[in-house]
């Protein structure tokens, strides 16, 4: 899958973004726009189970979104991160700061 596809679901408990495909230098802007838009205004679940690559810029968006959510008193979960996402997160040394969950019920 070469294209990034992000679908949004809004529930009364928060928002869910389902991210599929690569988050790289070509697709990063869409990922950034959608994540930044939601991270401040609602509790957010990022379903990253179908992410095939995550560039450092994409990882930076996740880190900034966690900051934004914390500042706004919101929560951000990463649902079922793919192996490549998990490795990228672990490479930061701050994996404990990323709320990674295995099922949606752990968030909402």
């Amino acid at each position: 899958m070469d294209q990034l596809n992000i679908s949004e679901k809004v529930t009364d408990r928060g928002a869910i973004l389902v991210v599929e495909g690569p988050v790289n230098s070509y697709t990063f802007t869409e990922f950034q726009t959608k994540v930044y838009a939601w991270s401040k205004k609602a509790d957010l679940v990022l379903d990253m189970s179908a992410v095939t690559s995550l560039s450092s810029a994409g990882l930076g968006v996740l880190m900034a979104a966690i900051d934004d959510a914390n500042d706004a008193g919101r929560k951000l979960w990463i649902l079922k991160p793919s192996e490549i996402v998990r490795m990228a997160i672990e490479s930061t040394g701050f994996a404990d700061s990323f709320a990674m969950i295995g099922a949606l019920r752990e968030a909402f």
Partner: protein
Amino acid sequence: MVMIVSGLLAALVLVIFGAHAEASATTRRIGRRTLGLCLAMAAYAAAAALESIRGGPALLSLAADVLRLAGAAAFASLSIGFPAERAAPVARAAIWGAWFVAAALLSALRLVSGVDARILRAAVELAAAAAVLASSVAIILFPDRGLDRDERPRSAVLGMSGIVTALAALVAPFLPTYLSGPVALAAWFVLGASSHYAATTDHVIGPYEALRVILVGAVWTLSVGLPVGVAAWFLVEGLGDRPWIRFAALALLFLLATGPAEFARRRFFSALRGGRRYLKRLEEDLAAIDLDSGRDTVLDALEQALGEAMRFRDFAVLYENDGELDALRCPGGAKPRIDRRDPAIEHLVNLGTTMVSRRRAGDNRNYAIVRSRLLEIFDLLQADVLVIAREGREVVGVFGLGRKSGGSDWGRYDFESLARIYGKLFVFAYYLRNAARAWVIQTVDREIALSDQVIRSVQQNVDRIEHPKADAAFVTRSTRRLGGDFIDFVRVSENRWFFVVGDVAGKGLNASMSMVILKSTIRNILKTEKNFARLVAKTNAFVKKSLPRGSFFAGVFGYIDFAAGNLYFINCGIPVMYLNTPGFASFVEVQGDGKVLGFVRDIAPHIKTRRVAIAPGSTLAIATDGILEATNLRGERFGKERLQRALAEYHSYEAPKAVDLAVKAAYDFGDGDIEDDVTLFILRTKA
């Protein structure tokens, strides 16, 4: 009753004026002197109020007189050279000496000789008024020669208010008893209030500013004064004929009212005074500016973000260009050019100044020797505030922020906000300078044309390791030409090198600019910070606060000591560091755990300095993630094991060739296409 309430209220207001002046006046000394004057006037007003209580302590009358004289002395002291700082210790000592003698004489006449209090009161009124009148006439007729055109109006306001006060105070003793006290109180209140105005206001002859101050004062006085006045009335009436208890209760009320009054000033009237809180929004707006969008767009967005937050009229930007500060934007389309070695700019750099207001430039003696030239620059840029974007002595650019819309002043909150966003302004100045340079070599591919040459030259500009015991080489490649990888070496001594290898997260121009800025910032920090861990902590703080949102640095900081054969390093998220020692004859990972920079505000608790011995014959290899993430058509990653094998295979070659071959192996594996930047550094130690 009127005297009690108005006196206490005046005292309350004067205390807060004094506190505000102390915090907001351009210079600390002017602020302190204004505070002293306001406190003396406040004490006088409180004493005058309390002495009017029937059966109140008789000494309050004497205290009110002594304090009135103190107020006059404080005014005379403040007026010397106002608003510039003039030491004049002899003149001030004479003023306070005269006050001391007058106070002692007054006390003796009242307490020992029993001279009629009314006669003494009139004498005090006349003496104080005469002192204020003389000081006021002096600063109007003989203003300090060093004052410029911005300072003279403030000096004149002080002088005129002194004359008004003195004339009213001279008339007061001859008025009927019921008018005499209130008129005197009002006159001295005006002196304190107008001194505060002259000491804290930039544009004293501005109708908007004057109107705003009067409006704020009226609203504030009514909202705080009415409740206090009503409470005072109930106390006086309710406590009956018990003067000491009424005195204590009113004093307590006064003290209790000070807190809410100051709170009201800060919170509820800050908006009216132009003190709207905007920092958070401004930081967000600045973070949202995309450096990829082109120089003019960036400049427009920057002007809009700053202008909407701080509400100033004119905006000027100068950037450093071959020893000159050239205008990128200037009011009226002017294109001024200032020599980087201009004495005023040099002086600001020598003082370590990052921002200066027109008022401070005019008042503060630190700027005295370049004052006229500095004010010329303010005029040239039509600015009220200059922000000097610099790293050490290198001035990257200058921002000129104009007079505020509506005539309000640049206040403490504005300067605190500027200090908070200074790092970001520096980043913009750096970007604008390099973008402006690259504009000359514009090509079709804007992203590449903008800064590739500059960035490449920065990437190559390192103190290469050239040591008899070392064979070192590195390669940095970016598939999109503009990348965030960087490597830097700084020779610390004959046998010691400092190095950084890493990757600044981001894409394209943003990442490249962040890389350039971070590289120069680390070098700058290195000049002053000798503690290794603190250097990394400061770098982390810079990444967190000053680089665009979402930026982080993954890499390693190290010191190589060839004499001792040691490598000290702090892993900040470098994916791999291999060491091959003669005894082990294999490439072993030594990097350990690491935390990237720019995620947490304080990295200090998370970092650890490690040491490994690099005996002669050892090989150190450091790589960023790009080489590991090279992917072939089957989706397999090059990874650590293939890199390890490649390093082992080319181990017998000299470092430059080994580096090239290892990188080539990764590119061959990825069929010539690697998505991320690639950096590989190899160091061999020799006997």
